[in-house]
């Protein structure tokens, strides 16, 4: 029984990592808490649903297309709107992204309606040591983890990735080294949106999605980022797994209705005890 909950938690944790990694990247590099993130996840999920169910395209073709569309969406939003206020105080950027989130979410709600929708793919279940694990969850988690690790690798080994890291470390020094800051900001935001879209596709495979879930996704992203440490990509992976585990165990011991609260209370505790998070470095504010 315990093992089942632990495995469920870890599988969920992989998805959570993918969900939060874009959010963490944007937070770390742009110093913006992107309240739009939850809606971008929902947007990804709905595009995926439309592509598969209404247009009848295969999933492996739809998912990359969704990612590209969201990348463009994020790039444009950053370039057109956020870039103008990026140096403003936190309250301004945070409220602005929340305003955008209200607009996007309202549009999604009016276009797709509030009925929960799901891809409902059934790939059978895997029975190991008395545990029942749906295959589709494993696939969703593997894809999510693969993308997260790919992003991590790209940040460390590609020229663009190094530029992003450089901007995160010190934007003025990076500008002096010839890095075009607005370009990098827009790219980073685009990548954040892309990861949100990917997480949305994976979510649509596993859970029924409604536009109202954007707040839930955003809440998870918050908790994970705080747990893992601000703006750190490996931190988001650790935080995601920790949150998945904690929620799994919380469901087991306290009942499912408390699972979300356990996550938030854990976050409050971490925020107060050590504000730089589990894997975070000091100095990012």
């Amino acid at each position, binding site marked *: 029984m315990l093992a089942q909950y632990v495995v469920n938690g870890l599988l969920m944790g992989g998805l959570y990592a993918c969900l939060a990694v874009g959010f963490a990247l944007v937070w770390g590099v742009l110093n913006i808490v992107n309240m739009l993130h939850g809606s971008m996840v929902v947007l990804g999920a709905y595009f995926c649903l439309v592509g598969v169910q209404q247009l009848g395209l295969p999933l492996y073709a739809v998912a990359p297309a969704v990612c590209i569309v969201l990348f463009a969406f994020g790039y444009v939003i950053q370039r057109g709107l956020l870039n103008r206020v990026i140096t403003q105080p936190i309250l301004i950027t945070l409220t602005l992204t929340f305003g955008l989130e209200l607009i996007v979410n309202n549009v999604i709600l009016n276009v797709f309606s509030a009925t929960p929708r799901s891809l409902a793919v059934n790939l059978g279940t895997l029975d190991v040591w008395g545990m029942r694990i749906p295959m589709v969850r494993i696939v969703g988690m593997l894809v999510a983890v693969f993308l997260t690790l790919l992003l991590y690798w790209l940040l460390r080994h590609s020229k663009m990735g190094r530029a992003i890291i450089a901007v995160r470390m010190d934007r003025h020094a990076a500008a002096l080294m010839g890095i075009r800051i607005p370009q990098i900001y827009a790219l980073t935001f685009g990548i954040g949106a892309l990861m949100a879209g990917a997480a949305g596709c994976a979510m649509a495979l596993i859970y029924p999605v409604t536009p109202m879930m954007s707040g839930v996704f955003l809440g998870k992203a918050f908790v994970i980022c705080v747990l893992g440490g601000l703006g750190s990509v490996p931190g988001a992976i650790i935080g995601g797994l920790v949150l998945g585990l904690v929620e799994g165990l919380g469901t087991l011991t306290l009942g499912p209705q408390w699972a979300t609260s356990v996550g938030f209370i854990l976050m409050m505790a971490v925020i*107060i005890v050590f504000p730089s998070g589990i894997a975070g470095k000091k100095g990012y504010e």
Partner: protein
Amino acid sequence: MIFDRPAIIKLVVGVALFMGAAIAGGLLDNYQLQVGTSLAMLSVLCMGWNITGGYMGYPMLGMAAFFGLGCYIDAIAQVAGIPVVAAWLLATAGGALTAALLGLALLRLKGHYFAIGTIAIVEVLREVSNNWESLTGGAVGLNVPILQGDPETVGRFFYLAMASLALLAFLITIVIDRSRFGFGLRCIRQNEQAASMVGIDVFRYKVAAFMLSGALGSTAGAVYASMVAFIEPKDAFSLIMTIEVAVMTMLGGMGTIFGPLAGAVFFVVLREFVWANFINWHSGILGLIVVIVIYFVPGGLFGTNWKALFRRAARPRASVRSQPAL
């Protein structure tokens, strides 16, 4: 405390406004009373938020937490048989106490962390009120005993109660604006370290400001709960409200005396006349307002230097271009 002539004029104008509103209360019909009451409530929340968010400059997004807390304290107290006004006072004390305890932990955080910490309080309290069924009635909600009397009189009573609370909040704002305490808060907004260096007890100031915000929010919630006589978690702890309050104050001008009031008035007028026609686009329009405010009037109505703005707009464009480059 420095009360120079502009401050006295503001005080007189403000008090006259509230007196006018109180007298007008006798003439309004039921619908107008309702709008008036909700306007007064939002002004209280905005003025409460303005202390922490405006004067002190901390990105507080937890006003709904105190509001909801006040709702529940009032409801539970009234169900237990405590009279209305005593329940409100209890909510005030509860709000201040909770704010003090939370403030001790949260006010050590800065920037994003503070913002997220305060949002998380709203979320946690909503979950608690959802799940603690024996105390709060859970997701089903909680009925508050309805005040005896005919609806007209009761409506007028709540209108006057809310307006008096707004007047109290206004007086608190004006005292803060003109006092040493407010000066300290403004110093904290500009540079916390420098503020502590010139001898301001930064942490105590911060906790005090947070407590004032909490007490005002909680009292407004208590009056609201008694008025609507039914509360549920998603109503009491609403994330939309927590942002709305910040946006309204921004619209009016953060850290100004009349800003929160003007923002609330503008917002309520917009809500009654525009949103009523676009039921499905409620939150979308709110989002649009947010974006417009941030791009075009970031200082708000009372925080923007309109004179300079007009002067710049009046100046012919060519002269701007002919200025030497820096």
